[in-house]
């Protein structure tokens, strides 16, 4: 038996109704695309349905009982998310549409910032070569628009950040350092504390894309040393067993209060006159318009669900499954894993290539066996280019993944090789 798996995995799987369905030809579903989006437990589905059936109303504006219930549900979701990430303060949690919007919110607000936060010629924004496009393009836009310079950490052959250049890259010119906690392509877990400390020593703002880390490892911001705690983190709801259409931006309260508004409109104001307006305090300052209410409520149920399983237990499970998968993949001839080969250094997304078969063709044959993976560049084209590949196949496990599913993947990869007549 493999150590570290979630206790009562069979019972946990029953929480996810979609895992019971079969695919064309009666094949069972082997879902290995959770880094793309996670599946949803019944409690999330039920919570959202219940909200729509019994409590639906707009929030913060309706004086009636339903309005009060809906507002209560929405704000209580904020409390749950704050607890999930160990936010020092609940009002530092901003709901967005997704992680991309959260990152764009920060980059755009910085474009409008004045004083210490202003970004301009001579200033530098530092990212890394392993970022998802959503943590590259907003910074390209910011630096292009403001005449600042974009720089980045390169990668080692093993798929780690090349920190040997850290002294040249983090300097007094650095205004923002933005990087991913866990790579969506290479799986690499980055040293958040170390990089954050170095960035803070030069007074830079640290933004961390937590889209892949929040689902699979504990996040406790309040427990981090202030020097080692990022100033902003962003993640999306649908990867933490919540619905799509809801994301989270957490930011240090005094930083958020200093940032100019991003979207203007209802809810984000204090008062509006034709001559000008004043703005609400955080979090509402950054939540213009009617928010995704039922999605936020669903996210609240999702992070509660994860909290009950325990993120430590989820991380142990991912570690065990990832190690098992790395062993299994190593038995497939011609298969090369991109990224760290030690499960302790990585998350549950494993990208690989197989000599002689294009990732699309691999994914197609796998799908015919009921195994769902992702093929392509995974919105990380620069990271692929770094390893000299145009695209890759990615399997990504989650808390409901079983060793038998990894066996099915390996068996389907063997079948793929025989289908394409590779010796």
């Amino acid at each position, binding site marked *: 038996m493999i150590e570290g798996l979630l206790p009562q995995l069979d019972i946990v799987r029953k929480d996810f109704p979609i895992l019971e369905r079969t695919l064309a030809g009666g094949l069972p579903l082997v879902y290995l695309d959770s880094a793309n989006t996670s599946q949803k437990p019944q409690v999330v589905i039920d919570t959202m349905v219940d909200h729509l059936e019994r409590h639906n109303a707009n929030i913060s504006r309706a004086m009636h009982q339903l309005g009060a219930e809906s507002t209560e549900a929405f704000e209580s979701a904020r409390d749950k998310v704050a607890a999930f990430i160990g936010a020092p303060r609940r009002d530092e949690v901003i709901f967005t549409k997704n992680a991309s919007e959260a990152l764009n919110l920060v980059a755009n607000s910085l474009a409008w910032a004045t004083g210490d936060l202003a970004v301009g010629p001579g200033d530098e924004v530092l990212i890394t070569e392993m970022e998802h496009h959503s943590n590259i393009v907003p910074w390209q836009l910011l630096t292009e628009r403001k005449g600042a310079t974009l720089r980045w950490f390169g990668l080692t052959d093993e798929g780690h950040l090349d920190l040997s250049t850290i002294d040249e890259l983090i300097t007094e010119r650095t205004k923002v350092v933005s990087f991913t906690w866990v790579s969506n392509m290479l799986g690499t877990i980055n040293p958040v504390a170390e990089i954050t400390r170095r960035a803070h020593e030069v007074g830079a703002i640290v933004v961390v894309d937590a889209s892949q880390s929040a689902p699979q490892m504990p996040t406790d911001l309040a427990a981090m040393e202030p020097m080692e705690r990022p100033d902003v983190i962003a993640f999306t709801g649908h990867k933490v067993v919540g619905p799509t259409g809801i994301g989270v931006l957490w930011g240090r309260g005094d930083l958020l209060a200093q940032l100019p508004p991003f979207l203007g409109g209802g809810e984000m104001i204090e008062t509006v006159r034709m001559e000008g307006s004043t703005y609400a305090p955080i979090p509402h300052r950054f939540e213009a318009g009617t928010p995704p209410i039922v999605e936020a409520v669903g996210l609240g149920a999702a992070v509660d669900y994860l909290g009950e399983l325990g993120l430590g237990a989820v991380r142990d499970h991912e570690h065990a499954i990832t190690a098992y998968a790395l062993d299994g993949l190593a038995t497939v001839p011609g298969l090369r894993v991109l990224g760290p080969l030690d499960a302790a250094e990585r998350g549950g997304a494993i990208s690989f290539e197989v000599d002689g078969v294009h990732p699309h063709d691999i994914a*197609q044959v796998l799908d015919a066996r009921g195994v769902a993976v992702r093929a392509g560049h995974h919105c990380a084209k620069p990271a692929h280019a770094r390893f000299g590949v145009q695209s890759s196949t990615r399997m990504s496990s989650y808390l409901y993944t079983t060793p038998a599913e990894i066996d099915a993947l390996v068996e389907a990869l063997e079948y793929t090789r025989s289908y394409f007549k590779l010796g």
Partner: protein
Amino acid sequence: MTNAPGQDLDSLYQEIILDHYKNPLHAGLRDPFEAEVHHVNPTCGDEITMRVHLDGGVVSDVSYDALGCSISQASCSVMADLVIGKPVEEAMAIHESFLTLMQGKGQVEPDEDVLEDGIAFAGVAKFPARVKCALLSWMAWKDATTQSQGHSESQPQEAQHG
């Protein structure tokens, strides 16, 4: 409503397609040419650089450098072999016929007289995610040919890079 991927896998990966994938025809970039285009499939990253040489209203050469899956590579090989030597008008009609087949959701009966090896792609039309793979090179060819026609008065270009 849903495909039966298990059963359809062989209809997708016809022997003809796998043969063209392993031994693509007319591959490589050649001179002379009037237009060179670079097309990418943004969702998957497949890409192709293609040159077209027209001579007296005839597609004299199609040369290419392509990175992609078996479907996109084989489709490019089949396309180049079909249009080379054909008058532009006839080649455009073949293009139209292939496009109709690909957009037909598996309901269009292909005309072997027009599409020759191209009929092997009939199965691809049942896989919406793969239609764009099959069409990448055809769209690049149409673009390059249209541009070449614009240059038909002028002399062919020489390669700008080695």
